[in-house]
């Protein structure tokens, strides 16, 4: 890779203190995002994907949350453990964020225009009138019809898709170099989802902005991302280019996720293969691989020791945290196994 990446996350570990004990929500996550690329983090509920990006934004409630280890550098400067004032300076300016539920993420008592203008006033010191006019321009950029009239309306007067557009407009107000989109289309219908993904892609390409897309939907990943990290039980278990992940899945969990989805090519009679069981309890994560208890190929070592990343010898940047990728591992026909070089981290 040439030069430092836009965002470098290393060994991120996040825990939550609860009455029931300590939840180890994120257990040592490493990844990098290059300028202008779209990276997806995929995983199911509770895998730690949202907590990962929320800790980058400094919006984890602390307590009960606690970032116990790790670092995250944006253009070389550390994001974790910032003073509230310093965190406010980059939040919304350097990194924009859009959320799953636009209805609860926008202030119901402020007009849409004022909320977008506020971002510009706070971060750029632009005067009221001018900020409001820029807000209208931003709404037009996200294809909200009659932007002038809409800017004076409140969130309840918007539909879900329109609110998501408004939130995109707000998050892009200060032209951030990185946009974090946390399940941006999960609450929307497919036709509206297609519109929003299309809008995000257009704006991303126009500003060559980097995007971290958090989603549980592999189809959305296939449509938008260039790079993918698959998360399970608080760890990244496989990362690589979108083609590596889809066509050369090296981790049994990635493969399991794919076979649990109905495929639209081929026979309808091919049955779905759900992953049996459920994810491990993160109060006391297993000693070995988090997926071992559900993995059809689990070996003894899988239960005893957490695997390191094994780097794909043929595809740069493709690696899986799985003992089946070790040089002396048995062959599993359905799994891609060209990865023979052990490596730690991403």
């Amino acid at each position: 890779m040439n030069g430092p990446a836009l965002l470098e996350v290393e060994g991120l570990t996040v825990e939550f203190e609860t009455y029931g004990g300590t939840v180890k929500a994120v257990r040592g996550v490493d990844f990098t995002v290059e300028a202008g690329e779209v990276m997806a983090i995929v995983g199911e509920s509770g895998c730690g994907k949202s907590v990962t990006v929320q800790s980058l934004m400094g919006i984890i409630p602390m307590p009960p949350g606690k970032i116990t280890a790790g670092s995250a550098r944006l253009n070389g400067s550390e994001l974790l453990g910032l003073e509230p004032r310093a965190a406010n300076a980059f939040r919304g300016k350097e990194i924009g964020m859009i959320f799953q539920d636009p209805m609860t993420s926008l202030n119901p008592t402020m007009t849409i225009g004022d909320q977008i203008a506020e971002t510009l006033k706070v971060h750029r010191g632009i005067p009221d009138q001018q900020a409001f006019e820029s807000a209208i321009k931003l709404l037009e950029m996200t294809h909200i019809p009659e932007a002038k009239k809409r800017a004076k309306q409140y969130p309840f007067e918007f539909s879900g898709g329109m609110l998501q557009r408004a939130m995109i407009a707000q998050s892009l107000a200060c032209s951030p170099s990185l946009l974090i989109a946390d399940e941006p289309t999960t609450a929307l219908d497919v036709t509206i989802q297609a519109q929003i993904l299309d809008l995000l892609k257009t704006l991303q390409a126009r500003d060559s902005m980097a995007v971290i897309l958090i989603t549980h939907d592999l189809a959305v990943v296939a449509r938008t991302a260039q790079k993918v990290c698959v998360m399970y039980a608080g760890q990244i278990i496989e990362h690589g280019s979108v083609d590596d992940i889809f066509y050369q899945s090296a981790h049994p969990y990635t493969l399991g996720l794919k076979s649990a989805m109905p495929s639209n090519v081929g026979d309808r009679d091919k049955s779905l293969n759900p992953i049996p069981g459920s994810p491990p309890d993160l109060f006391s994560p297993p000693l070995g691989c988090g997926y071992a208890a559900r993995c059809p190929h689990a070996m003894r070592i899988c239960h005893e020791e957490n695997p390191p990343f094994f780097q794909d010898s043929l595809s740069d940047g493709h690696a899986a945290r799985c003992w089946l990728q070790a040089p002396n591992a048995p062959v599993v026909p359905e799994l891609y196994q060209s990865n023979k070089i052990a490596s730690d981290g991403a």
Partner: protein
Amino acid sequence: MIKTRALKKHFQLARHQTLHAVDGVSLEISENEILGLVGESGSGKSTFGKTLIGLHERTGGEAFYREEALPKKFTAADHLRYSKDIQMVFQDPYASLNPRMTVLDIVGEGLALRGMARADVQEQVAYWLSRVGLHPDHLSRYPHEFSGGQRQRIGIARAMIIEPKFVVCDEPISALDVSVQAQVVNLLEDLQRSMGLTLLFIAHDLSMVRYISDRMAVMYLGTLVETGPSDSVFFSPQHPYTQLLIESNPEPDPKLERTRNAQILTGEITSPVNVGPGCRFSDRCPKAMPHCSSETPEPIKIAEDHIVACHLYS
């Protein structure tokens, strides 16, 4: 087995404001069939399901269960009578189970209402819990002790314990994770086969509906725009709305996604309040003709069992 003729459900919002949630839906579901009903939010698919089985009072049209006309408004006695044959599985496994009742009471309520002795109810509930993949010892637990997928299994056990003939599944998997979705869909398929059930499977996930159902019906703004065998509707959609809907459905296949030039449906679903005549989709339809907005299209049979309501085919 199930037949509706011009079924209507309107909600009166104010004196001159009527919400046309379901506006003349004629549909037939045969014995042992899984019919998938798809549509976006606000298309009226859930309201159709609920009106069909008497959870809403019908505004107009007729509904039949095995040639027997269902009442326009269900009385308590009607509910008790028809619930023996007709059951429902709800979307939200968090909201549809009473948090203050134990699993035994929730799943066994239907049997208890029919006067079954408590010991027998307990035995039946334990059997059904294991049948849907839960531990029979969990009888005395409360809903909050279960995960979303497990709760949905409880909801399924509650519906199936009566051994119904017809079950309306209203978005039974939308609130669940991908790997759990597959578990629940497989369970439903398995029960459908072993019990000879007829299912109305309401969902917005096109790939899943195509996978599970024999026939697919597509709703838009309270009307049915297309019905036909699942694969015909999915692979050769005829109605412009169905075409755009399927076009916007992403596939878990990056190469396919890169090569396809998806045409995106612009705008949003129109308000269902005080709708006028004409095709409901005419204001967003890329192929709309002048008379589309004034004349309501009649359902046209374009192939065996494939029906489209669109002026392009008249």
